């Protein structure tokens, strides 16, 4: 669960911090892209959510040292973003949003070249290029010129060049851009597998909520350059008071009335689903619901703790 520390920065208990941003402001002329943004990004997979133009890409570019902050400070893996850009870039792999490649190269040439640019010895870079291309599903096409690749393959090769030097932090900017549904699924599987149990921390910037929900454990919501909310997806989706959703075989007024008689709050049903709110612990609430179902003759088909969707969380952050 995220909580605010003494300096007002959101931080996570018991997790190593990968990046720490304090009061970061970035301006392009009169336009403020990031406005006094402070946050901590813990290890694991973190989603950077926000509508288009929210400042997500600017935050990534500032972390990489492409953009000089107007004010504020930050560290990535303990390195200062203002002064240690080179050291940071040695630890980071970037998969940019735009199509990018080195012209006139085969996939294996491109990825091994990216490895050499990251500081790998040529022999290691070549060996590793074959490995990551295989991992990214481009093993069969590794000797083809990158310029002949399809959009999906170009996305994969961007991931391969970002992974080749074994980064400790991977920045993925809209990784599913332009992919068909199958390609999207495959890309999300790749991102999920690399970010869970492989020692690679990942920041995924996207405006696609299902993508973020699929691969990330935590999210940071940035809107108009400001941090709106941050935390684990699980925590953010929780509703106050921990209500439960009870699904019946068919709607039952008697069931609803019985629950209300026992002092529970029951929201109007959505189809066959009743949202029940109470101060009781979940196990006790389940017993009360079962008793009410028996007494009213209703058939319970499902019982689960009610949560919001990530979309509802995002919309709330957007309108707050």
């Amino acid at each position: 669960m995220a909580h605010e520390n003494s300096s007002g920065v959101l931080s996570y208990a018991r997790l190593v911090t990968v990046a720490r941003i304090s009061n970061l402001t970035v301006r392009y002329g009169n336009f403020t892209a990031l406005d006094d943004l402070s946050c901590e990004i813990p290890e694991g997979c973190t989603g950077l959510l926000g509508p288009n133009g929210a400042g997500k890409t600017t935050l990534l570019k500032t972390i990489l040292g492409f953009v000089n902050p107007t004010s504020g400070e930050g560290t990535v893996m303990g390195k200062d973003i203002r002064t240690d850009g080179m050291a940071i870039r040695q630890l980071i792999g970037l998969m940019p949003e735009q199509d990018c490649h080195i012209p006139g190269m085969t996939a294996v040439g491109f990825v091994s070249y990216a490895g050499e640019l990251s500081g790998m010895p040529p022999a290691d870079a070549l060996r590793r290029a074959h490995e990551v291309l295989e991992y990214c599903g481009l093993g069969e096409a590794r000797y083809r010129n990158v310029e002949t690749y399809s959009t999906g393959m170009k996305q994969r090769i961007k991931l391969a060049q970002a992974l080749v030097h074994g980064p400790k932090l991977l920045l993925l900017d809209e990784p599913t851009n332009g992919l068909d549904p199958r390609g999207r699924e495959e890309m999300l599987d790749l991102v999920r597998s690399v970010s869970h149990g492989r020692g690679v921390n990942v920041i995924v910037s996207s405006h696609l909520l299902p993508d973020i929900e699929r691969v990330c454990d935590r999210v940071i919501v940035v809107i108009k350059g400001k941090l709106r909310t941050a935390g684990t997806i699980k925590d953010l989706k929780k509703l106050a008071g921990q209500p439960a959703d009870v699904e019946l075989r068919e709607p039952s007024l008697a069931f609803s009335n019985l629950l209300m008689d026992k002092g529970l709050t029951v929201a109007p049903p959505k189809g066959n689903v009743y949202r029940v709110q109470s101060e009781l612990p979940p196990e006790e609430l389940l017993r009360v619901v079962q008793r009410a179902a028996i007494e009213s003759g209703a058939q319970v088909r499902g019982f689960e703790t009610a949560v919001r969707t990530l979309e509802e969380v995002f919309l709330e952050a957007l309108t707050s």
Partner: protein
Amino acid sequence: MSNIKPIADLSYRNYDGPLKKPGSRWWVIAKNGIRIALKKKALWGLMFVSAWYYLVMLVVLFFVQQVTSSNPAGAQAMKAFMERLIWPDQFLHGFSYAQLPMLIIALMLGAGSIANDNRANAMLVYLSKPCDKREYLFGKWIGIALPIFVIMVVPTIIFYGYGALTFREYGFLKDAWLLPKMLAIIPIAAIFHASIVVGISSMFNQARNASATYAGIYFITNFFTLLMGGIWASSRGETPFPVKHLFYASIDGVLIGVCKAIIGTKGSAPFGIQSPGGVSQVPAPNIAAILGIALLISVVFVLIAWRKIRAVEVIG
């Protein structure tokens, strides 16, 4: 069939091998530029074309030597030919006639060096690695300058070696500093071409646009040089003061001026032929001035590239 798993472990593994510290990426970039250039077959052909004057002179000198040595009256003919031949001027001709092929080589090596990266958004790949703008630009620049240097220096050394071994008695080694002088001129030409082509390439995102621009500058200014040379020749050296200086106001002119000034010659007709009607050559420019101009032009184009190279386009 789809359930059959590969024998190899294709899951993601971390890389724990060595990583070199930043500071040597320019050589990775330069090596890549040279490797791509060497794959172009046309480059190998142009290498021979750029050395055509030296090759022809080697053949001429070889046959003159063979014919005169087997003929009783040959010694006199050989002496007369050698007296007409001004050795430093042969290097000046070799260098001058190499300039047009060298333009094409520079375009092949350099026109797309940054322009193609701009087109493919490759700057994001380069600059997101531990490689800064300085290393990127230096790597691209070396990747052009080094091959040009090698292409120019090899025929020069071969010709010098042949001359030094065969024509010592005909005054070939009269200027003991001739080879060091040539070895100083060739890097200047390589730097000059590399700087201009890198600067122009950085302004475009299509190699052909960069090629057309550099070729345009080259030919337009060269036409001007030829015009000034024509005025000079027809006036037999009695022209107004600016003509002999404006002769050098071109890509070719600057480099020929540098060569003339460093070798210390004003030139002569090629192949030891007597100038028709005693046409005089445009005298060498002031060495400090012409070197200053070459350096200034190189620096200006490198600065253009420096300003143009950026990982992200930031619009204020």
